[in-house]
């Protein structure tokens, strides 16, 4: 491997390339030449000034030598020293403080070398007349100054040096006729010192250049390091940001995961319960079939026997007992079948509230002491499509259970009936109900309540906590069967020692005979044009249906920006905006604010499923918005609409 004088490999770009004679940078370094010259100038300026002063001291100091060795010539010599050389040096010294000096410095150093040299040569010529040949040594001093302290560059100094040599030779040979031996002697010292001076100058400039080059390399490396550092820093920042984001995402995912897991396990439990009940239902259906076949001949024969037996027969009572028992068996089978959902539902328009009231009155008649019945019925609920017997059975069964739970302690039986809108989120929690409008029957007691295990099994047929003989254990399973058959749902909440709440959801079949519903509807109605916005398609459909049934004209949008575009086109068309609060692109309250800017007369109702989101709505500047909480109650909804529209 080749190694240059810097200890670097010239094959690589790291080697210093320069002209061996002029020392100028070449190749990839040539661009740096002006920079080096500038740098060299800056570094040389002060040493140059010092060397100039030093040179003047020496040049002046030798005036003493003049007086001692050539007293007869001292006036002329002193004239040369102080009247010619000194002014030149002083003016260059002064000039060094000017800006343009940078450009002429090397040239002026060369000039000073030449002028001082010629001065000495003149003194040599004059000295030779009186046989003094020793002044040539002054030239050696000039070489020393010129090549070293004065900071002349190698090329300039060499040029001046050799010019001085030539001038000396000319004057020594042709003008002063120096003796041969003295000439040779002087030349030896004098040329040798010029050559040594050149070598020193060469090596000084080279090392200055090397120094510059090394600094440059260092700078470049430092730049590289800086660049790497900054890239590294950027990467660290970027990476940190990414990590923070990922971390946040992970946290969110974990939260969602935990929530989904919980929901899943809840659904699994529900599904398991439903499957279990369904399986038992299928089994019950099979048993019912066989049981009916067994009951058929019993009833047939007892009926025939009763017809044939004379009135006074003692057997008559016995056979009547068999016949009655078989009839009870028949009823039981009917109940099992209701539970197993094998009975066709015959739906007709019924007044739900009326049936519930009937059952409550029926129960009141035989209410044990210490139990109070409270009821609160939403008068807005009109006719629904159902089998009255089924509604009867549901209410009766639930009431009987509640009363049984409070038999010893007494308490309050509370029955509430209203209608609610079930959205996707709520629906998921209630046995995966379809979203829509439902009649909600809530029946609570303050009885003994039940534990989790009991709660899980209460809808299974033949599961009973009543003592033997006081119930078949079919009651709640029958209720479950009926409710499921109506595509509804039943849920139970219970705290041991505090009481139980059963909630029954029955679809409010608006798709049924609407006229009948309308005729008995006591909900406030209207004819205004309403803009309905919700990002859930199903809820939007439901909203249209509901509002149209109340007589309103409805335009519905599932996208807040589309709704806003529509409103911009026809701002005067709508009297009321009904909007969901939580939508992906724009909050309901934001949408309302933008619309109110266009038409300040617009009335606004905001629907929200989250109580905590109300503060968002309230925080918006216009607090004239009405807020309705999900699940939407039909009566509340219709009344609020009327209230908002009538509030001029």
């Amino acid at each position, binding site marked *: 491997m080749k190694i240059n004088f810097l200890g670097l490999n010239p094959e690589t770009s790291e080697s210093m390339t320069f002209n061996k004679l002029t020392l100028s940078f070449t190749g990839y370094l040539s661009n740096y030449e002006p920079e080096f010259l500038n740098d060299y100038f800056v570094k040389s300026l002060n040493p140059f000034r010092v060397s100039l002063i030093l040179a003047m001291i020496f040049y002046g100091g030798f005036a003493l030598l003049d007086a001692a060795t050539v007293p007869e010539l001292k006036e002329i010599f002193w004239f040369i020293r102080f009247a010619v050389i000194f002014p030149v040096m002083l003016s260059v010294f002064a000039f060094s403080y000017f800006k343009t000096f940078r450009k002429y410095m090397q040239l002026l150093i060369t000039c000073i070398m030449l002028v001082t040299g010629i001065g000495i040569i003149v003194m040599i010529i004059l000295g030779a007349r009186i046989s003094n040949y020793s002044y040539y040594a002054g030239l050696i001093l000039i070489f020393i100054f010129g090549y070293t302290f004065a900071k002349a560059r190698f090329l300039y100094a060499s040029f001046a040096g050799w010019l001085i040599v030539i001038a000396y030779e000319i004057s020594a040979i042709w003008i002063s006729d120096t003796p041969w031996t003295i000439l040779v002697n002087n030349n030896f010292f004098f040329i040798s010192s010029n050559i040594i001076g050149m070598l020193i100058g060469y090596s000084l400039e080279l090392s200055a250049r090397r120094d510059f080059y090394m600094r440059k390399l260092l700078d470049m490396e430092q730049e590289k390091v800086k660049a790497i550092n900054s890239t590294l820093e950027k990467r660290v920042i970027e990476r940190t940001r990414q990590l923070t984001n990922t971390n946040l995402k992970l946290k969110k995912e974990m939260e969602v995961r935990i929530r989904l897991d919980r929901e899943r396990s809840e659904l699994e439990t529900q599904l398991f319960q439903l499957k279990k009940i369904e399986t038992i239902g*299928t089994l019950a*259906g*099979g048993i*019912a*079939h*066989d*049981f*009916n*076949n067994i*009951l*058929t*001949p*019993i*009833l*047939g*024969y007892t*009926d*025939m026997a009763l017809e044939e037996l004379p009135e006074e027969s003692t057997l008559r009572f016995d056979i009547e007992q068999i016949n009655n028992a*078989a009839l009870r068996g*028949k009823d039981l089978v009917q109940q099992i*079948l209701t539970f*197993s959902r*094998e*009975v*066709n539902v015959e739906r007709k328009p019924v007044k739900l509230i009326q049936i519930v009231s009937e059952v409550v009155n029926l129960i009141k008649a035989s209410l044990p002491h210490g139990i109070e019945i409270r009821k609160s019925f939403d008068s807005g609920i009109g006719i629904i499509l159902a089998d009255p017997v089924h509604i009867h059975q549901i209410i009766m069964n639930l009431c009987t259970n509640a009363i049984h739970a409070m038999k010893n302690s007494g308490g309050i039986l509370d029955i509430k009936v209203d209608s609610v809108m079930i959205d996707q989120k709520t629906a998921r929690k209630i046995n995966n109900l379809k979203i829509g409008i439902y009649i909600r029957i809530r029946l609570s007691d303050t009885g003994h309540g039940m534990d989790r295990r009991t709660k899980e099994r209460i809808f299974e047929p033949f599961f009973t906590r009543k003592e033997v003989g006081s119930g078949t254990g079919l009651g709640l399973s029958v209720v479950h069967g009926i409710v499921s058959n109506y595509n509804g749902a039943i849920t139970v909440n219970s705290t041991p020692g505090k009481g139980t709440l059963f909630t029954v959801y029955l679809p409010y079949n608006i798709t049924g005979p609407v006229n009948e519903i309308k005729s008995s509807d006591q909900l406030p109605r209207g004819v205004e044009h309403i803009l309905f916005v919700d990002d859930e398609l199903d809820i939007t459909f439901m909203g249209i249906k509901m509002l149209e049934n109340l007589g309103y004209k409805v335009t519905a949008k599932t996208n807040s920006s589309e709704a806003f575009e529509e409103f911009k086109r026809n701002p005067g068309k709508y009297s009321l905006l009904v909007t969901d609060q939580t939508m992906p692109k724009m909050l309901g309250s934001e949408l309302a604010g933008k619309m109110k800017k266009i038409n300040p007369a617009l009335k606004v109702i905001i629907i929200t499923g989250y109580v905590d989101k109300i503060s968002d709505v309230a925080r918006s500047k216009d607090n004239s918005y009405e807020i309705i909480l999900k699940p939407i109650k039909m009566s509340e909804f219709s009344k609020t609409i009327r209230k908002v529209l009538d509030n001029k």
Partner: protein
Amino acid sequence: MAKILVIDDDPSILTMLKKMLEREGYEVDTACNGSEGLDKIEDSPPDLLITDIVMPEKEGMELIFHLRRKKPELKIIAISGGGRFNYEGYLTSAKYLGADLTFQKPLIHKEFVQAVSDLINNK
């Protein structure tokens, strides 16, 4: 005297119905499955057929379907104690396939006898 054929896979029901209807003065024949019933209908066609629906040999449903095409004049009453999986669906389907009347087991004696009489007398 009107002739009735009763088909049911449960012998006790078969015996009971035979007795019940004979008391009313009908001539009653019985079969314990669909294939046997079909043979008997071929041999001497009855005025009324009372058939169970869920039976092992030949399903009542199949029998009704077959007979409705072959013997449109034959009157049919379908009875059932309910299917194992779809209780009332069977009777609804039987009616759809052409049974004149359907009855849920256990039969209500008076109601059933009255319906048989009405059907035979074309009321």
